[in-house]
C-alpha cells in the first residue's frame, strides 16, 4: 500500500476513535450521575497510559527512522547523476553541472531500477523539487535552496513520464513551475 493511502486510513481511524472516546466521556457525565471522584487511582491510570503511549511512539520511531531519505541508497554508487537548478519560474535539468548565467535545459532519461542522484539547487529563491509519477502521485522530493546542493537519490520502479512540480512557495508563478523526465 502506498504511504499516502496508509496514513490517510490511519488518520481517519484514529480520529474516529478519538471522537468516539470524547463522545463516550461526554455521555458519562450527564446530570443523573453522582458527583464523586469516578476515576479511581488516577495516578496509576496516568502511568499506564504514559507507558502505552511511550511504547507506541518508540516502536513507530524505530521502525520509521531507518526509512528516512538520508539513509536510503547511501551505500550505492549512483548510475546516473542529474543536475537540477530552479529559477522563478522554471526548472533546468541537465546531465552536466549548470552555471548560474548559462541556461541549460536537456531532455533527461534515467534508467529504471537503477540508483539515480539528483543534485538540486536554486539560482534565486527557495523552490521545491518534487517528482510525480504517471498517476500524479508524489514519489519523492527535496528542497532547492540557493547556495546549497541537496542530493536526492532514488530508484524508479516503473518506467514512464515523470513530472516535476515546485513544492516550496516561490512567488506568483509558483503553481506554474513544472518540468518532466523519462524513466526507461
Amino acid at each position: 500500500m502506498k504511504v499516502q493511502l496508509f496514513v490517510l486510513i490511519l488518520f481517519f481511524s484514529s480520529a474516529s476513535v478519538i471522537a468516539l472516546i470524547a463522545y463516550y466521556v461526554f455521555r458519562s457525565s450527564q446530570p443523573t450521575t453522582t458527583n464523586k471522584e469516578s476515576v479511581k487511582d488516577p495516578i496509576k491510570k496516568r502511568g499506564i497510559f504514559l507507558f502505552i503511549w511511550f511504547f507506541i511512539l518508540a516502536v513507530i520511531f524505530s521502525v520509521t527512522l531507518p526509512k528516512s531519505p538520508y539513509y536510503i541508497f547511501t551505500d550505492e554508487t549512483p548510475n546516473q547523476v542529474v543536475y537540477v537548478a530552479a529559477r522563478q519560474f522554471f526548472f533546468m535539468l541537465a546531465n552536466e553541472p549548470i552555471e548560474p548565467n548559462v541556461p541549460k535545459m536537456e531532455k533527461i532519461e534515467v534508467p529504471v531500477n537503477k540508483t539515480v542522484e539528483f543534485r538540486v539547487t536554486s539560482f534565486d529563491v527557495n523552490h521545491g523539487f518534487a517528482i510525480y509519477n504517471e498517476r500524479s502521485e508524489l514519489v519523492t522530493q527535496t528542497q532547492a535552496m540557493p547556495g546549497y546542493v541537496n542530493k536526492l537519490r532514488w530508484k524508479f520502479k516503473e518506467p514512464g513520464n515523470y513530472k516535476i512540480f515546485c513544492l516550496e512557495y516561490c512567488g506568483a508563478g509558483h503553481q506554474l513551475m513544472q518540468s518532466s523526465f523519462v524513466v526507461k
Partner: protein
Amino acid sequence: MTTLSLKKTTSAWIITILVLFIIAISFGITMRFNQGRDINLNPDTFYSIMTVHGVTMIGIWSCAGMMAVNYLLSRYVKTSVKLNVFAYAFTVVGVLMIWASTLIGKFHAGWTFLYPLPFRVAWAKWGTPLFLWGLTLLAVVWLVWAIGMVAQILRNYSLSESLAFQHLSRTKTPAKETPPFILISFVSLIGIIICLVTAAILMALLFAEYYSNGGFVNDPLLVKNLTYFFGHTIANEALYLGLATLYEIMPEVSGRPKFKTTWYVALGWQLSLFFILTAFFHHLYMDFVQPISFQIIGQMASYLASIPSAVVTVLSVIFLVFGNKIKWNIVNGLFFLGVTGWIIGGIGALIDATISNNIVLHNTLWVPAHFHTYNAMGNVLFSLAFFFWVGNEFVDSKDYSKFNKLLLALLIIGGFGFVIMFYIGGANSIPRRYSVYPKELNLGDILATLGGAFASVYLLAILWIFIDLMKKCIKVFSSAR
C-alpha cells in the same frame, strides 16, 4: 483584582479579534473557491490574500491567548492595564501596516516570508519594508507585553515557584502552591519571549541585508532555521496559552473542584517547554544539507511533545468530566470540543512529523490540514470559550448560556468538513499554496470547492457567536462603575 478598565480593554480585544477573524475567514473561503476555479483571481492577488490570512490568523490568536492570560493573571498578581492598552494600540498599528503592505502594496511572500523571497520584489517597492517593519513592531510590542507579564508573576512567585519546582517532590506538600494557571502561563510566556527574541534577530538580519545594498548577504539555511523556529514556536505557544485558560476556567464553570498542580503536572509542563523549542526542525526535513542529527532531534521532539500534553492535559480533562455531574454550557462545551479537535489535529501533525511520511506529505495540503484542525477546531475554540466566560463577567452573571445544538452542529460539520478536504488533498499529493491546480492534479479543484462550502458553514457559526458576544462586549463600555 479585575477593574472596569481591564474589562473594557479585554472587550476591545475581543471585538477587534472577532472582526479580524471574520474577515480572515472570508479571505480563506475566497482562496478555496479560487482553487476550485469557482472564481478567478490574479495569482498575485491570491498570494497577497494568502499572506495576509496567515499573518492575521497567527497574530489574532496569539493576542487572544495573551490577553486572556493577562485578564486571568489579575486574579493572582497585580497586572498593568496600561501595558495591556499599549499592546492593544500598537497591535492595531502593526496589523494596519501589514494589511496595507499586502492588500494595497500586493506584498505576497507568504506569512513565513522565507528569505530571499521578500527581496525579489514583485509588488510595490514599499511593500517589503512596510511588511517587515509591521512584523518587527508586533514582535517588539508583544515582547514588551510578555516580559511585563513575566515580571508581574515574578513579583508574587519566585522563579522556581513560577516553574512549580517545589511541586516536584512526590511526598511532601509544598508551603506555597503554584496554581496550574500560573505555571502554564509562565512556561508559555517564556517560550514566547524566546521566540520573539529570535524574531527580532531574524528581522535584524533581514534589515541588514536590505539596507546595506549588497554589502551584507544572509545564509539561506540559517535564516530558514530562524524563520521556522519563530513561526513554529509562536503558533504552538498560542495554543498553550489557550490551555492555561482552560485549566483556570473549565473546572469552575463545570461545578468541579479546581485543578491542582501535582508533580506530574509540574514535570509535564516544564518538559513541554523544552520539546516545543526543538520540534521546529521538522520544517526542514526536506533540506538534506541540514545536519542529520537535527532531523532526528526534530522527529524525536515532535513525538515527545505529545507526551506531556496527552498524559497531563488530556487525561486531566477526561478525569474532570468522566462519570461526573457536569453543568454543561457554552464555555466548558467549547473547551471540551476544542480538546478533541486539538488531539485529532495532533495525530495529523505526528504523522507529518515522521520523516519517512514527510517525504510525500511535505508542503502538500496535509500541512494546512493538520494545523487548521488544531487551530480552527482547537485553539480558536479555547479562546472563544474564554470570550464567553469573560462576557458573563462583563454583565455580572454566572448563568452561562447553553451550547445551542444547531450552533454545535454548524461548528462541527463546517470545521471538520473543511479540514477533511485538506487531508484528502494532501494524501492525493495536492500541493499547498497553489492559487490553482495544474490539470494533472485537478482532483484538488473539487476538494477545494467542497472545502470552501464547508468553511462557509463554519463561518455561519462564527457569525452567530460574534452576534452573541457583541451584546455583552458593548455593554461594558456603557457601564460606569
